[in-house]
């Protein structure tokens, strides 16, 4: 890849004609109305930097940092600008050439020292959840006005009160429970593996019921998405290479992910590892679970649930992967469900990878707005295809609102008693 | 040339822009002139420049545009365009209006029932050629219907009562004559008339004209025959009648009968005509105030291009009615303008709330005509209002 110390390629920058069609799509511009907080503004900053007209200083970095990476602008752009590559490469340039203030550096270091590694993440999450039950949340914000403690407070607020313990066992092949249609592998990821074990279990249940053998390889680790989206390209490339090496020899028809954020990176390892054939081949087999199930067509017997579902289209699903209709179609396949979209459904919830940890103010504004748009629908459950979104929405929603990955609802529907249609 | 500027009061009737420019340019400092459509009765002490001798037009039927010299008469323009199946956005015209020059018509800022469909006449002015008080020749806009080059001074000339410049030609957007036009008259006092307009809007009826006066509402619809038919059915539904029961009339030019009658009534009205704009629903309050204060009984009349919110108050002369109408307008925050007679005793044509931008209007007069050569009730009124305290 280019980027690195030099920043995005000039040719890529110049595909932006500054028309401004991205402005209404961009959550940070909608909040701030500041040109520099918009996609074309950020691209213009990259252009000006490449011209040598502005410095790589903390102001510049601040405007690039504030991007959620939600890619809503990509959908709005009539010129087909590859904003994802631009922002990733600008961030990569910042990480390699800009010395952040000590506190920021520490925060990022802490995040990337823990998050990609389930082994480190798991005990911390357990501890955090326990602390939360004991009321630490009320104390944490007072600890500090910034830095690591503030990040800790943000992270704490996101944690569910109970961690999930029902993740499928690693290193096993779960056999299809219906006439067999193929073999898939489940990508278990890092954060998701710790906090969202139940989603993984649901994915296994649904895939089996749909006639797939499901392989859950052990020792997968992080896919590198969080690191890539934050400009930590070398780290991301390292993680990606490791994952590909680990999974390269497994014989599966498709690799399934339940995380939209991971999916968009998993599908573009050729950008992270250019020229590495095994990486491109791996990426070519990655499918988001909604995409996969919809492509294959549902055959299992889904029973009525009788609930109102608010569906939040995760940015990395809808914008980065163009998976818009599939999740809705799957949810609507559950008899007796009402599936609703909140107002401004295309706007990011503010989760955006590690964004809610490093830009808490913007994340809070977006999270609050999203939660209230969802609350207006008076749903029984909010569904989203990305774990980060679910944590973020839950944080700003009424504690009584249940949240679930769509595949969990499918699994519940499968398990529901035929007659009662319990909710 | 009918007179020389240096020899005291005279009628100047230039036959070309160049001549007009030269006439105005050769005025001595301190000499005043007023702009008119045509020669008035001799008026001692004031030179008058008239546009009646400025002739010529260029009609581009396929482009639906007309450039006409200011001396062309509206009736002649109307007739010429009708032969091409086109019209200017001003109808119905009274006999007096047909005989008016385009220049005088523009300067007056007059409205007709056509405002409902096409907006005020100014909306269709796509260019103007004019001479400033010092003889400077200028134009703005052009002959194409879409054009944003430079300031839109053409629309500024409309309704300026000759206070800014001597308009020598105007460029207009034209419209096809409707294939069929019909109008329905209903007895309806103002509150019901306003409600009917709202219902018509909601029913998807496109009103071509919408006139109110003397307790009657007249709705015009235009278009292909089937569309007119359908609109009439909808109107009948609103009125709980069948189409056959409608008080209906049709005319090839779509000239609304009530509109003509009301316009003629205004022309022969013995008193002042005050023009005022409101929101659609605002006219109900205005009408209510006139009735409740007993002004209707004392002869104050209301006419209205109802749905566009342009109204006329006929105020009989004498009896202090002017002051009462002024008070009503003020209390309702409505701005009115005397349109006839235009030179009242107290020196201002404005009634009620002062129009916005008076200070800028004053500066504009000073900038366009720094020596104050052009005598106009608009100028007098703006100066009077800006020099009055509060």
């Amino acid at each position: 890849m280019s980027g690195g110390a030099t920043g995005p390629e000039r040719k890529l920058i110049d595909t932006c004609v500054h028309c401004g069609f991205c402005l209404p799509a961009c959550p940070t511009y909608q909040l701030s109305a500041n040109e520099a907080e918009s996609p074309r503004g950020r691209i213009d900053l990259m252009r000006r930097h490449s011209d040598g007209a502005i410095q790589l200083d903390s102001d510049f970095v601040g405007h690039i940092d504030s991007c959620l990476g939600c890619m809503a602008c990509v959908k709005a752009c009539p010129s087909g600008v590859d904003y994802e590559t631009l922002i990733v490469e600008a961030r990569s340039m910042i990480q390699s050439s800009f010395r952040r203030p000590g506190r920021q550096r520490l925060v990022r270091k802490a995040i990337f020292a823990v998050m990609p590694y389930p082994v480190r993440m798991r005990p911390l999450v357990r501890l955090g959840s326990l602390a939360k039950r004991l009321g630490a949340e009320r104390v944490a914000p007072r600890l500090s006005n910034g830095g690591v403690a503030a990040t800790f407070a943000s992270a704490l607020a996101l944690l569910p009160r109970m961690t999930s313990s029902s993740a499928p066992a690693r290193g096993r092949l779960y056999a299809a429970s219906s006439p067999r249609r193929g073999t898939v592998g489940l990508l278990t990821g890092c954060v998701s593996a710790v906090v969202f074990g139940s989603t993984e279990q649901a994915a296994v249940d649904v895939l089996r019921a749909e006639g797939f053998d499901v392989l859950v390889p052990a020792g997968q680790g992080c896919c590198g998405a969080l690191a890539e989206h934050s400009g930590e390209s070398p780290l991301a490339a390292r993680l990606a290479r490791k994952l590909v090496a680990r999974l390269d020899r497994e014989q599966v028809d498709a690799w399934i992910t339940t995380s939209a954020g991971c999916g968009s990176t998993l599908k573009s390892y050729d950008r992270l590892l250019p020229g590495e054939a095994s990486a491109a081949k791996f990426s070519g087999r990655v499918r988001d679970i909604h995409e996969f199930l919809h492509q294959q067509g549902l055959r299992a017997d889904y029973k009525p649930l009788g609930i109102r579902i608010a569906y939040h289209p995760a940015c990395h699903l809808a914008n980065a992967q163009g998976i818009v209709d599939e999740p809705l179609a799957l949810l609507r396949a559950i008899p007796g469900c009402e599936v609703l979209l909140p107002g401004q459904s295309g706007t990011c919830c503010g989760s955006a990878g590690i964004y809610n940890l490093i830009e808490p103010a913007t994340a809070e504004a977006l999270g609050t707005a999203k939660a209230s748009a969802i609350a207006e629908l008076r749903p029984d459950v909010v569904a989203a295809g990305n774990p980060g979104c679910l944590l973020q929405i839950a944080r700003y929603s009424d504690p009584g609102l249940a949240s679930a990955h769509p595949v969990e609802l499918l699994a519940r529907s499968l398990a529901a008693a035929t007659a009662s249609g319990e909710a | 040339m009918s007179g020389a500027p240096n020899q005291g009061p005279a009628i100047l009737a230039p036959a070309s822009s160049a001549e007009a420019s030269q006439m105005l340019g050769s005025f001595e400092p301190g000499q005043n002139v007023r702009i008119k459509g045509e020669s008035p009765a001799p008026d001692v002490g004031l030179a008058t420049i008239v546009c009646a001798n400025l002739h010529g037009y260029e009609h581009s039927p396929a482009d639906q545009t007309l450039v006409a010299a200011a001396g062309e008469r509206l009736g002649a323009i109307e007739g010429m365009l009708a032969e091409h199946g086109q019209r200017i956005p001003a109808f119905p015209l009274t006999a007096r209006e047909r005989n008016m020059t385009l220049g005088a018509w523009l300067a007056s800022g007059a409205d007709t029932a056509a405002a409902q469909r096409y907006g005020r006449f100014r909306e269709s002015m796509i260019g103007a050629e004019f001479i400033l008080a010092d003889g400077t020749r200028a134009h703005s806009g052009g002959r194409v219907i879409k054009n944003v080059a430079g300031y839109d001074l053409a629309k500024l000339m409309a309704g300026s009562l000759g206070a800014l410049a001597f308009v020598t030609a105007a460029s207009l957007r034209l419209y096809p004559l409707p294939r069929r036009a019909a109008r329905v008259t209903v007895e309806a006092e103002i509150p019901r008339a306003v409600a009917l307009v709202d219902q018509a809007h909601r029913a998807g009826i496109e009103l071509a004209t919408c006139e109110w006066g003397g307790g009657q509402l007249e709705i015009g619809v235009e278009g292909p025959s089937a569309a007119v038919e359908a609109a009439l059915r909808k109107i009948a539904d609103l009125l709980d009648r069948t189409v056959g029961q409608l008080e209906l009339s049709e005319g090839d030019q779509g000239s609304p009968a009530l509109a003509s009658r009301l316009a003629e009534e205004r022309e022969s009205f013995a008193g002042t005509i005050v023009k005022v704009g409101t929101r659609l629903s605002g006219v109900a309050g205005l009408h209510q105030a006139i009735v409740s204060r007993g002004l209707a009984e004392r002869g104050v009349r209301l006419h209205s291009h109802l749905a566009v919110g342009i109204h006329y108050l006929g105020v009989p002369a004498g009896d202090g009615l002017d002051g009462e109408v002024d008070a009503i307008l003020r209390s309702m925050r409505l701005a009115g303008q005397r349109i006839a007679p235009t030179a009242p005793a107290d020196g201002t044509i404005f009634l009620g709330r002062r129009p916005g931008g008076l200070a800028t209007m004053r500066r504009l007069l000073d900038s366009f005509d720094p020596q104050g050569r052009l005598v106009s009730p608009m100028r007098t009124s703006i100066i009077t209002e800006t020099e009055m305290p509060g």
Partner: protein
Amino acid sequence: MPIASRSGRMEEFKRRVVELVPQGECIIGDAAALSSYGSDGLIRFRQTPEVVVLAKSAGEIHSAVKLCAELGIPFVGRGSGTGLSGGAVPPPDGVVIAASAMKGILEIDPVDRIAVVEPGVANLVVSERTAPFGLYYAPDPSSQSVCSIGGNVAENSGGAHCLKYGFTTNHVLAIEVVLPDGSVEVLGGESPFEPGLDLRSSFLGSEGTLGIVTKVWLRLLSRPEAVRTLVADFDSAESAGAAVSAIIAAGIVPAAIEMMDALAIEACEKAVGAGYSLDAAAALIVEVDGPREEVDALYEEVKSACVSCGTTKIREAADQAERSRIWLGRKAAFAAAGRLAPAYIVQDGVVPRTALASILGRIAELADDAGLRVANVFHAGDGNLHPLVLYNPDSPEESEAAERVASEIVELCVEIGGSITGEHGVGLEKACSMAAMFDSGDLEAMQRLRIAFDAQGIANPGKVFPTPRLCGDTPGRYRAHPLELSGEAIRF
């Protein structure tokens, strides 16, 4: 007390504006952000402002302008920054006063059919918010999802549907403005009739040179009962042009008639996949709207006009979704040109609509001579052309040739009785071309208007009017036509 040095005054401005504007966070001073306010939608022009005031209220705009007036500091108002003539490029040593955060809809009256909005509201938002009442705001610039009502007022914006419905000036009842001397006035009224001189009309389309709009009263229309849209393909631009004339000659005023040539079709198709025919030499999008029976009758006539002029294929929009897709393609046309070439100039000129086919031929000749490609998108119904001159910015020769072709095209428009701009405005880009359309008397009359609003000349200086600094000491002089000199023709 005037402060002698320019930089001293700016320092004072920066110091005092923070006190005047209650929320300090709306002053943008960081170098990176300031740089991003250097251009509007036309990136060829750039000037970094000294300060950006991101106003949250009319009061803040008022305070900022008053301070500019007191210190003699030039300013420019800015909405969404989507203008295409450099109109919102900051004046040198100037201040940007942005209304992008003022997005409130203050009133919607469904009976009187009026919306009162703040200037930062996006055009399309007005229609979205009034849709529940069956109403909409008619002017629809291609950038309507982004561009602000305040910017529309400044530019007197048009759009595809202005053939039938008119321009911004026909739909704005009144505006509250802060004049360059710091005073606030409401121009116009709640009805199209307001006594006095019609300053509203002058302000509309004045491109920020008369002040900043802080509140707008908009006229709303009923959503048409029926809309029908077709795309008609033709094997030549001439026959497409003939179809336009035939439709108009039949006395039909369609809601819109758009024309695209083969290159433009290709660009739009690549960008949004609107389903246009890639093998057509030209295509018309014709839309008829209004009461159902009227639409049905006129739509059939439009179709037969296209057939009699030799259309090779008519695609009829079956439903709203298809109609949206057809328009999505057209509205993305400018930005989509980026798919054809690394750089392009969007030109905006007007000719009498009967001259459309002939100017297309002339544009093709100009392009051939320069060895460039030109894609054409027209609002054909009103003669407004948007040639997109494609070039490679890495080649200085091509860049220069593109600029030359673009300006030759507008000169051609003026030559055949048209205008240098139909909707993008003069701005910085065409200030020097004004002399092709207006002579010294015309420009003087306009200056007299400007002075009445802005005696100090601090509102968006350097725009619209040719200046020696911009255009050299000898801007092109207007040459009178012999017919005009002889009195046989009237000049426009």
